[in-house]
């Protein structure tokens, strides 16, 4: 693991007497994609906006490359907010011109346009772009200064599946250029696809931190077997006694999938509608907090 590009110690934000971010210690290594995960209201956006310098913390410190954040920070980082508006009546090319003038050393215009696939959009009014096109433009603005560290706050919320996948490809290309990406999301598949390391936030504190796969291995063994409740007649077999009821399914964490399936067939339980899945970050979050990740 490389040196930390961004570090926090005791980072705290209080609204109306309640700590929405509570004594947060983060160490984000350089060159990775780091995910801040959590349900709506967990404190993700508040945390990332303190790291971005937009919100003033009520306590704690933030260090960028080992030193307190100072002037020149915005020359080195790129930021994409969850909600952004741009000045009205500007075309995509005008917006690129505007932002390129903010930086000492902007990326060559053509390179940036090609990178974010904006060639065909340059003469369009930015207000008439689709969701995916707009996110690509906003990403281009965040990449304008060829930043060492890129902040992305829920960048794919509201995008259709195809646009999300295209955006993921862009994030991977950023990551492959050796940049550090700090991403917040409440989409678990996004975190699994993109993040080298994650921190799961709940009620303003970190409840789990590490590489996604390592976290899953630590908390789950084998696979999750789900069978519709209706398949069972009478009492549950003994080996299924620990199953949890999840909606219309009974879910069992099976260490040995083969033997559990064999036992089910032996017990004469129909396998219609059966699902075998590896545990994912949704399951992890549910296990850690007792409530759903996407719940309000």
């Amino acid at each position, binding site marked *: 693991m490389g040196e930390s590009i961004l570090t926090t110690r005791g980072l705290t934000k209080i609204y109306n007497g309640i700590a929405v971010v509570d004594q947060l210690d983060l160490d984000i290594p350089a060159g990775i994609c780091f995910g801040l995960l959590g349900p709506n209201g967990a404190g993700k956006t508040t945390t990332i906006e303190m790291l*971005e*310098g*937009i*919100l*003033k913390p009520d306590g704690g410190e933030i260090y960028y490359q080992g030193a307190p954040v100072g002037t*020149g920070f*915005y*020359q080195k980082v790129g*930021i994409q*907010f969850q*909600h*952004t*508006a*741009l*000045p*009205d*009546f*500007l075309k995509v090319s*005008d917006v690129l*011109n*505007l*932002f*390129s*003038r*903010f*930086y*000492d050393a902007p990326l060559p215009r053509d390179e940036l346009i090609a990178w974010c696939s904006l060639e065909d959009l340059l003469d369009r009014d930015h207000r008439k772009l689709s969701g995916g096109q707009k996110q690509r433009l906003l990403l281009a*603005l965040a990449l304008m200064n060829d930043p060492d560290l890129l902040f992305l706050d829920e960048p794919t919320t509201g995008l259709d599946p195809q646009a999300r996948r295209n955006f993921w490809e862009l994030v991977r290309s950023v990551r492959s250029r050796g940049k550090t990406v700090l991403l917040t999301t409440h989409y678990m598949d996004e975190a699994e696809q993109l993040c080298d390391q994650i921190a799961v936030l709940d009620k303003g504190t970190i409840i789990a931190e590490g590489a996604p796969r390592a976290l899953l291995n630590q908390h789950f063994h084998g696979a999750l077997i789900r069978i519709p409740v209706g398949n069972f007649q009478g009492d549950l077999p003994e080996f299924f006694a620990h199953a949890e009821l999840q909606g219309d399914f009974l879910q069992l964490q099976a260490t040995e999938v083969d033997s559990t399936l064999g036992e089910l067939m032996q017990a004469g339980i129909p396998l219609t509608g059966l699902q075998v899945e590896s545990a994912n970050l949704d399951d992890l979050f549910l296990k850690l907090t007792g409530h759903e990740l996407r719940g309000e």
Partner: protein
Amino acid sequence: MFWKRFYGVLTARNLEFWRDKEALSWNLIFPLVLVVAFAFLFDSDDRTLLRVGVVGAEQVEELQTLGYVNQIPYDDLSHAKRRLEQHQLDLVVSPMQGAYWYNAQSSGSALAAELFLARTVDYQAEQVEGQALRYVDWVLPGILAMNMMFSCLYGVGYVIVRYRKNSVLKRMQATPLSAFEFLLAQVVSRIWLVMATLVVVYLICHAIFNFVMEGSYWLLLLLGLIGSVCIAALGLMVASRTRSEELSRGLLDFISWPMLLLSGVWFSLDGSPIWVQQLAQIFPLTHLIDAARAVMFDGAGLAAVLPEIGILLLMTLVFLGVGAYLFRWTGDGR
């Protein structure tokens, strides 16, 4: 780098205004329509009151009993005579000199002179002449200044609040752009547009009405520039922190309407109660319009309007200082 960032925002803001054709045409058409409308609606000389300028005294006793004579005190005889020449006064009386002046080219003045003669003795008659100052001449600086006031207050203040509410400001904050660079570009962009509008509207109206202009156009332009900077700074101050478009609209209305009524845009405050005249001094628009009329109708030079310029610059500094101190990108103390 400062200039590059400043120029970036300036260009973007100009493009935004230029492409907003509805706002652009409104900015040009509104003052034109007003000037033309006022020229035709109010230029008949059917005032029922006689206006008498009294120099060196509050009242002329002999005229006090006449309800239809409005006596307006003047300190300066030449100032009062100038008003008489321009048909703004019907008679000028100086009790100390025992003389009165009338304008033979004005029917109202002839009437006032006869009336005055009938009620007084020992006054010596003097005659003046001059090009009549039509109401449209008189009201033009007021209308131009009013248009400038609305354009600066709402074009700077309201736009910044809208930018803050819809998070444009937040996006700008997350770049090396400083608040000073951003705000300066907003003000300069608006002032250049206001000055361009001012010149175009003046030239079009001048072609129609052939306005009275006794002084220097350059000085008038300088006054317009200083006045618009001052009022744009006032707009910045109002917009320094709030995220609420409703609140900012209310604040801007609260500032602009009293100025509209009490800065002498539509009617002269010469004859109004002294406290109204004193109150009007707190408005930048009053100083701008007074100075502009002095240049246009009295041929005042730079030295004569220096006090008004000084006051406008001082107000600008105060508005900018308070605005800069209060300014927040995202507002509400965040």
